[in-house]
């Protein structure tokens, strides 16, 4: 009797949690057709193990700024498609924030190969921050290849997440306030971090000009 009571409680608990999860992913907004279609996209994404909450958040924002219904549905569909691509590109990274960063990068046409490179540059740590900065730089019109090089170099040279995030959060200000081109601003911020990090090439550490016995003192 006690066993069946416990089993019943567990079953109810699981059912309640499932209902709770569904409620937390419930999209209400726009007209009935939009709501239904977006909800279907969200549920399909959740069934594939994708972070459907990201789609819901974007759809809610679209409603808040009065985006037309068909545009909301199109945005949700595109995002679900990108999440699938992102999931494959950055595996084994599977945290929601990592996938959100990869999806955002894809939305700015960052090639999948670059996502793979960043994922492999930091195989054991979350990559949400590097991917976020990558997306910021590309949004600022820094070429994706150069943006990826900056991010992967910073990862390899042991930059902290705060240092990486600050670079992404300041390049735009250098463009708007300093009047620099985005590429120049990104390179300057990157070069500015250089003295605080390991040399770009580990070889450079032992080859300070003018100091090693193999290269001899620098001449005027």
């Amino acid at each position, binding site marked *: 009797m006690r066993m069946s009571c416990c089993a019943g409680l567990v079953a109810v608990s699981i059912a309640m949690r499932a209902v709770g999860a569904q409620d937390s992913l419930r999209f209400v907004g726009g007209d009935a057709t939009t709501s239904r279609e977006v909800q279907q996209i969200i549920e399909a994404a959740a069934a594939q193990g994708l972070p459907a909450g990201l789609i819901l958040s974007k759809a809610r924002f679209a409603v808040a700024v009065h985006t037309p219904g068909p545009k909301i549905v199109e945005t949700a569909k595109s995002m679900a498609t990108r999440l699938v691509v992102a999931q494959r590109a950055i595996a084994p990274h599977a945290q929601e*924030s990592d996938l959100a960063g990869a999806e955002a990068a894809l939305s700015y046409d960052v090639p999948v190969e670059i996502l793979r490179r960043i994922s492999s540059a930091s195989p054991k740590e979350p990559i949400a921050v590097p991917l976020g900065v990558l997306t910021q730089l590309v949004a600022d019109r820094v070429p994706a290849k150069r943006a990826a090089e900056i991010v992967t170099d910073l990862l390899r040279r042991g930059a902290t997440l705060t240092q990486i995030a600050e670079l992404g959060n300041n390049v735009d200000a250098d463009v708007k306030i300093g009047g620099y081109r985005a590429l120049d601003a990104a390179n300057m911020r990157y070069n500015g971090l250089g003295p605080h990090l390991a040399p770009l090439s580990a070889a*450079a550490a032992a080859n300070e000009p003018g100091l090693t016995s193999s290269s001899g003192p620098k001449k005027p």
Partner: protein
Amino acid sequence: MRRARLLLCALWQFGSPALAGAQVEASFDVGVSRLRQATVPTGNSFSGGATLDWLGERGQLRATMLTSRQTESRWTGQTALFGSLTGDSQSPWWQLDVAASNYAQTSAAPTSSAEGAARARLGTGLRGLAAGLGGGVSVTGGHAAGVSRALSDGWWSVGSERLVASFGWTRTTPPPAFGGRTISYEDLAGGWRHETGVVSVGASGGLRFQSSSGPDADDWELVDATVWFAPHAAVIVTAGRTLTDFVRGTPRTTWIGASIRLTATAHRSLVARRPTADGSTPRLVVTRTSAQRVVLEITTQHATRVEVMADFTDWQPISLERGQDGASWRAERPITAGLHRVSLRIDGGAWIAPGNLPRADAGTEAGVGLLTVP
């Protein structure tokens, strides 16, 4: 004249990271110096040089060229190529180096050298040790001599400071102009550099000890300072004394000089460009205070209400609290690390992207900025 302009343009473009690859930097130096060299009267010298650096994940390559006019009838020219390759990890255990050089002066036979070295490493790029062996050949006129070296280095970086020390043993047979007998000697050197990005200051020095049939014990010193006064231009001041380089054929030199360096790659500098109108939009700064919580801070004058809405507020507006200084507005919330979309509103106006953040895509996200939370 037109050709000269095209050549300058081509050189400039060659140094551009966008075209020539990410980690390529070209720089050009012009300067004056007062120097004293063995067998040459003390005098003023005009010099010009170019340096091309290629930096990869596992290696680096530096090519330099320097020419100097010391008197009406005396010119010197020096070219050098240095390359390094390390093992494939953040803490590689081996390193291979190559160096090639050519030194020429008016009315004297040029000296060319080529060397290679292999080193075992311990540590990372921030601090570590290396030791190894190297060898090569030095040729002056018809005189060729082998070069043997034993090398050891140590490096340590803390913040903006960088310390380096090295100890090496060299054995070679210099050309007749430098004695012509087989010699060996030890060099002990140390150096410090302070690097902020805008300013770089360094000092280094060393001692050379006599060994078998070698030169007398002697010392060398070098100080230098570089200030980037504009994104593409720096002024450099150097002074020092170098010892005879028996392998590369350069004589003992004492000098003080100043030069201007021009580079295609932008650097942080003393001079910022003109502000644009968009610079007035308030900035949003984030600071992580714990594993979960983040402080959002916006500084804006004369505001009576500041609100933020973002994906981490579920797109619901939240009001920020005014700080005691009256201009800073803060809110602390749990926010995950990574990319977030955020928008702010001052005094009930339009929702806008913070001034320091790139805009999210237009369309559904107008007025939204992309924020990376550490």
